[in-house]
């Protein structure tokens, strides 16, 4: 089965996020005074061929741990869905 995968890489809780802090400090100047808790991450999307969803999730988790994230400072949020295949 083909799965559509989205990995959101974010800095771990407690790791300083200077990009997020800088964006947050800039917003009041544009009149957006109510914004707080800005965190900057990155999103990585790909398709994955796997036997079933559990296998796909296990493979993506391993891929994230070994390559897409640096576990010392980053976490991954993984979304896996059956890919819509054109027929």
């Amino acid at each position, binding site marked *: 089965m083909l799965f559509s995968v989205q990995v959101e890489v974010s*800095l771990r809780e407690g*790791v*300083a996020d200077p*990009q997020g*802090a800088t964006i947050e400090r800039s917003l009041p100047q544009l009149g957006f005074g109510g914004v707080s808790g800005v965190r900057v991450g990155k999103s990585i999307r790909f398709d994955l061929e796997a036997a079933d969803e559990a296998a796909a999730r296990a493979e993506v988790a391993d891929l994230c741990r070994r*390559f897409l994230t*640096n576990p*010392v*400072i980053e976490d991954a949020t993984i979304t896996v869905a059956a890919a819509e295949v054109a027929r």
Partner: protein
Amino acid sequence: MAPRIGVVLFPGSNCEHDVVEAMRLVGADAEILWHGDAELGGVDGVVIPGGFAHGDYLRPGAIARFSPVMGAVSRFAADGGPVVGICNGFQVLTEAGLLPGALQKNRGLKFVCTTVGLRVDSTDSVLTGSAEAGAVLRVPINHFEGNYTCDPDTLAALRAEDRVVLRYVDNPNGSVDDIAGITNAGRNVVGLMPHPERAISPLLGSDDGLPLLASFVAAAAAVGA
């Protein structure tokens, strides 16, 4: 015979020639090693220089560790061979698992390019063996992601085992415990953010990098002997 130092060139490295020149100045026979070659050609010491290996894509060092040369570097290090990673090279060594911890963006999101004071806190490593303990060296830094971090257990181990070899006198980037350079348990792999190869002559503002480079060449000579 002069010890042979190999300086690894990745696509995006930009300090390799500086390191080659600096190593020659302290008596080594230095050469460039291409990242796509899976062997080291019998060198006695390896330097991973600064720059932006593989464009720093994904994270600094994240792609470089898949270069064919890194398997050979890992085996060389495991056999006790002297390895030093400077700046981006430090980032590559942490991503490759040869050194613990990680280098995150500088505190305050500031790119820093200046000369800093570095205190030699351990002379028990391939990069500090002939430096003077407690000496403060003036060495340039030039980085965005030089803010060293690690989990509390790793930090405790680094301290307990005297593996923080260099500390900033005035912390420029937010590194935990003012860490500028660390070594592995075997004391033959060192990573540091500052650039000793840019402090090799009073004409450059400082020659305080020389004792560090000379230490490394001496360690490589001991391997080659």
